[in-house]
């Protein structure tokens, strides 16, 4: 008999389950798990056969925060309103209204890291979705129709918020979700910026955010609390600033963390930006990075080459790539992808929340031209003193990938930086060839050696 079955009918079983399984037992168990992880990490000594130094201690906290988030999700239905949102959606008003937020992209990445993405995506493929659509979408649609997920269970959405500032794919994907769940789909359509943003584009996004707030208030059954909204915006700004600081710590030699660490540690800024726990977490992380910098501890033992990663990570290869490259003295110290959640921090203005949100959510790197992305890469090459660039040609992410052939060409010919176009997919292992990938990476390292 479950907890809810044992209750009298007048007791809200959802709330009881949420309290018992999440607040009481779950949180405590995760805290104990974190202590155990911290104890293990503290006892860990550098392994002589590993090219990597021990991981950051704060990873135990990050694991606790993210696990807690997913655990709460299991029991959120009926207790909090639930919104499924794209990673670039303007979520601050929803947070202020008390919504529990699910990021399907993050969930799909979790499936990728746990190497379950392919089998879950195949559920979608068996139901008719083509292998040529985004593997994040296939993973999440597969999870939706089969219930398979490493997260235990995802709460059913009360609303869907889709913002096109990362791609048009999300619009098509969320239309499928809306058809399946039969709940309202709010679209925040962000015109692609081939050049600088025009006033009418900013006004358009602002108006849609205002409309989204109206829908969210109606579903939540309460108005937006302006003070709470201000606090969320202030946390969002502080969290993004700190995240940017975290990433910029890798400008030091040796870099105290790799971009692969960044892919893992970006969880809180993606899923929980606007929350105090995110601010506290990145403060803790910066303190640890500074300690490493002071002691001259790099993420890899012998940092000979410093490299930029462009595009999404290959989630199912993060560990292997980190080790493989580390063995060759290559530290991937920066990535355009992780920067996207920090570089717009100065634009966030809690005193003018809607105007600033409209600007912020128009300007992610994915909503800007190929030329702008090349300029960003050039800037990072200088600021991080990079020796090379790996451009992940991601079969699943066309807006990020189209343009990379010319970007690579210019990096090599105009900037004299070795650059590699690596064909793969962010979540589908069937679209990455180990042998071909290793050969190309070997050749890339040789190019850097030749230039050194």
């Amino acid at each position: 008999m479950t907890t809810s079955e044992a209750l009298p009918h007048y007791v809200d079983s959802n709330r009881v389950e949420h309290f018992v399984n999440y607040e009481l037992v779950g949180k405590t168990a995760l805290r104990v798990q974190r202590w155990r992880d911290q104890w293990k990490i503290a006892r860990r000594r550098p392994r002589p056969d590993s090219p990597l130094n021990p991981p950051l201690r704060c990873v135990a906290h990050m694991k606790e925060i993210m696990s807690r988030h997913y655990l709460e999700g299991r029991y959120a239905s009926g207790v909090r309103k639930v919104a499924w949102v794209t990673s670039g959606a303007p979520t601050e008003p929803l947070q202020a209204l008390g919504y529990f937020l699910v990021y399907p992209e993050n969930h799909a990445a979790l499936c990728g890291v746990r190497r379950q993405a392919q089998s879950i995506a195949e559920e979608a493929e068996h139901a008719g979705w083509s292998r040529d659509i985004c593997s994040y979408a296939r993973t999440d649609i597969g999870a939706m129709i089969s219930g398979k997920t490493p997260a235990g269970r995802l709460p059913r959405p009360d609303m869907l918020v889709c913002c096109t500032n990362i791609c048009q794919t999300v619009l098509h994907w969320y239309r499928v979700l809306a058809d399946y769940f039969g709940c309202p789909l709010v679209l925040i359509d962000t015109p692609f910026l081939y050049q600088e943003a025009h006033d009418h584009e900013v006004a358009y996004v602002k108006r849609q955010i205002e409309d989204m707030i109206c829908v969210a208030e109606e579903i939540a059954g309460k108005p937006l609390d302006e003070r709470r909204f201000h606090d969320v915006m202030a946390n969002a700004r502080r969290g993004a600033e700190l995240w940017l600081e975290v990433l910029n710590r890798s400008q030091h030699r040796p870099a105290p963390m790799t971009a692969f660490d960044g892919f893992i540690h970006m969880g809180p800024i993606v899923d929980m930006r606007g929350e105090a726990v995110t601010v506290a977490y990145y403060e803790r992380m910066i303190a640890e990075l500074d300690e490493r910098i002071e002691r001259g501890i790099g993420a890899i033992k012998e940092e000979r080459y410093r490299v930029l990663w462009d595009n999404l990570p290959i989630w199912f290869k993060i560990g292997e790539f980190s080790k493989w490259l580390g063995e060759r003295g290559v530290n991937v110290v920066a990535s355009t992808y992780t920067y996207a959640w920090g570089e717009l921090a100065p634009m966030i203005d809690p005193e003018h929340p809607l105007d600033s949100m409209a600007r912020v959510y128009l300007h992610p790197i994915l909503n800007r031209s190929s030329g702008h992305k090349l300029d960003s890469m050039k800037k990072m090459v200088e600021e991080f003193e990079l020796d090379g660039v790996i451009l992940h040609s991601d079969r699943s992410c066309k807006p990020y990938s189209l343009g990379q052939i010319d970007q690579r060409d210019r990096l090599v010919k105009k900037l004299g930086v070795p650059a590699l176009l690596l064909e793969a997919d962010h979540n589908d292992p069937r679209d990455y060839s180990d042998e071909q990938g290793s050969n190309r990476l070997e050749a890339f390292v040789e190019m850097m050696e030749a230039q050194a």
Partner: protein
Amino acid sequence: MPIHYPRAMLRAHRLHPIEIWGPPYVARHEGSRHFQAYTCDIVVKATSFLRSGGLDVARAIFVPHTCDALQGMASVLGDFLRPDQRVLTLYLPRGRRASDRDFLRRELERLARSLVELSGHQPSSEDWDEAFQAEDAADSALADLYRRRARLAVSDRDFYTVVRSREYLTAEQFCEQAALLPEGDAPRRGVGLMISGIVAEPLELFDQIEDMGAHVAGDDLACGFRRVYSPSSENDPFERAANRLLTSPPDPTCGTPIQARVDTLQTRMRAVGARGLLIYDPKFCEPELFDVPLLRKHLGEAGFPVLHVEFEMGETLPYQTLSRIEAFVETLS
């Protein structure tokens, strides 16, 4: 470039559009130097065509924001390839709300400023009136062709040759062509199909379908019925142009909800006597691919079987594609 754009606005600025949907006969290799193998043929082949001088006659390349692939193409053209022609863009909103309408109006005003620079011509109110009148007449002629389809004594291939001549003829020339199609006993036989997708290439497909004992009773093609716009009559030219674009039939690239697509397709299939839906997509077309399983499910429940085939643009049809369509037709017979 496809799909939706303000034709009357171009005409008012004394510009004539010629649409590029591939072209199918152009090889991919020149475009492949700039776009990955997983990029759709329309983008890659159009880039090949441009790089080989095929568009030298044009003064501008206009890329409406239709999908991520065309977005990438416009960006690469503007930032890296920098052709002699000016690259013009237009963001088409994916909703049909008041905010979308207002935005599109302002976006068209922005586009108009570029068109004035390009053409050196600032349209007068007479120019606008004349342009809307001519293009509305062509839009009506297209809508009328679809209404009269069952009474036209022409093959599917001939019908679509005329429909697609809108891609390069002037409004007047198109109206003339449409009026020339003779009414009488249509040479139709066998099973009626509805065809859906971006573009049905090569036109030989229609001959092959007829040879299989079927005919195309109606379409949901981006190059066809999805551009049967409703006439609008606002005084302000930008509002009028915006309204025209926002009243196109259901279209996944415009963000139409799936249920609305299903409802419209069902109604139209019943009206034209189509027994099944053939979804005929170019490879890597995400806007189309996402809807396929749900169209299959919902239309299947309504008694309309669905076949989905993907094709690579070329001058010939692969045998495998044809045999799948043939098997589908047999199941409907």
